[in-house]
């Protein structure tokens, strides 16, 4: 319950935050604080210096420009759920955010923190993979934008460098003929997934022109089920194909064994969640 001592700085700008990260060894950015503070309260993390980025202008908010939606990294889960823009143009993010934690946690926890934490249990990473999101990152050398696919390198390990800040997330606005689904198996409301799957499809009539399948909590990090995608792409989805897809997803999984279940159970549940998400995505692509 009691964190170790640390120094606290409320950053006034992105540049100020980056400078403080550079000036203070092992400094950590404080966003919503609902992963970092719990780790500090258990002394899993003993960061000696916290840079609070809650007061920085421009890290919040959701805007749409043409086919691209830009979401500030400090936008909270509650703000995602309330967003008219997302409800209309990226409902997958709204549906996924409703399955994250509980109302109080969603008032503080941010989409950027969820993504940057690198915990395989978090929901947004698989959603980012399914959406083919682009991550806007600021560092001492300026700005760079990288795809979410490739960002998640391992447990609590991402492509974010030591002195960098994830400042925004860009996702595509919904096009006609596209559909999405997120299915999450959990023991209770507020728990991390036993297994989860986020799916985005692009349909051409009954044929799946393109598909992206992200998997939650069944590997050291969120992963794309690429072999399963390859089986589906260019085909009509039926029961026979879905059986083969399930096998490919089980083969892609490498889950940790814990109180949520063993490898066999979690891998099988990942396949079931993906099957449901694929069917849902195809259904709502028709609407």
């Amino acid at each position, binding site marked *: *319950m*009691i*964190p*170790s*001592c*640390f*120094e*606290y700085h*409320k950053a006034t700008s992105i540049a100020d935050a980056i400078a403080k990260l550079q000036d203070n060894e092992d400094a950590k950015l*404080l966003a919503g*604080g*609902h992963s970092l*503070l*719990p780790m*500090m*309260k*258990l002394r899993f993390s003993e960061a000696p210096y*916290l840079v*609070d980025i*809650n007061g920085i202008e421009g890290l919040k908010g959701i805007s749409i420009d043409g086919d691209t939606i830009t979401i500030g990294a400090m936008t909270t889960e*509650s703000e995602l759920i309330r967003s008219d823009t997302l409800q209309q143009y990226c409902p997958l993010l709204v549906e996924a955010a409703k399955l994250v*934690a*509980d*109302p*109080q*946690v969603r*008032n*503080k926890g941010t989409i950027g923190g969820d993504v940057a934490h690198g915990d395989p249990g978090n929901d947004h990473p698989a959603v980012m993979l399914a959406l083919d999101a682009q991550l806007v990152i600021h560092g001492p050398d300026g700005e760079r934008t990288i795809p979410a696919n490739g960002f998640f390198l391992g447990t609590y390990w991402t492509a974010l460098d030591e002195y960098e800040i994830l400042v925004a997330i860009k996702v595509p606005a919904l096009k006609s003929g596209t559909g999405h689904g997120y299915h999450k198996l959990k023991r209770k*409301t*507020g728990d991390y997934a036993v297994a989860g799957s986020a799916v985005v499809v692009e349909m051409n009539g009954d044929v799946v022109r393109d598909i992206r399948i992200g998997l939650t909590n069944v590997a050291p990090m969120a992963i794309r089920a690429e072999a399963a995608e390859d089986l589906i792409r260019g085909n009509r989805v039926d029961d026979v194909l879905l059986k083969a897809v399930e096998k490919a997803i089980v083969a892609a999984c490498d889950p940790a064994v814990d109180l949520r279940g063993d490898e066999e159970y979690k891998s099988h549940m990942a396949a079931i969640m993906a099957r449901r998400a694929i069917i849902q995505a195809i259904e709502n692509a028709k609407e």
Partner: protein
Amino acid sequence: MAKQAVSFTLNGKTVDVLVEPRELLIHTLRENLNQTGAHIGCETSHCGVCTVDIDGESVKSCTLLTVQTAGSDVKSVEGMATADGLHVIQQAFVDEHGLQCGFCTPGMLMRAYRFLQENPDPNDEEIRWGMSGNLCRCTGYQNIINAVKTAAKNLQQA
């Protein structure tokens, strides 16, 4: 570690405290300001018995640093009742037997206070989902659902 002066509004009054950066808001409320209605039921941010209202949102005060509340408007259960008596939501918990040991009650009340502003006319399912950040060991939740429903009805008539 040097202490920092922090000012915020608590139940309408400005309070000034001197805290280490690592001090959690729940500890400041309970130990420094002697507002012991908000409780502590876990150390993993699950139970919600520490819930207070900050700038119009329900927040678990065990997962927020006091230094982060500088300039905020904080409401705790002690601020609910007025000179006229219990808040409508408090009375509904009494009337519907929505508490037994009372340990989760301050957090439940503060969450219900905000939830009913977010959704003034909720159905049972919306109440259960809206209150899902608050655990209770005694009631089995049913009478809490009834209390929130009764409070919603009475607030709309008030």
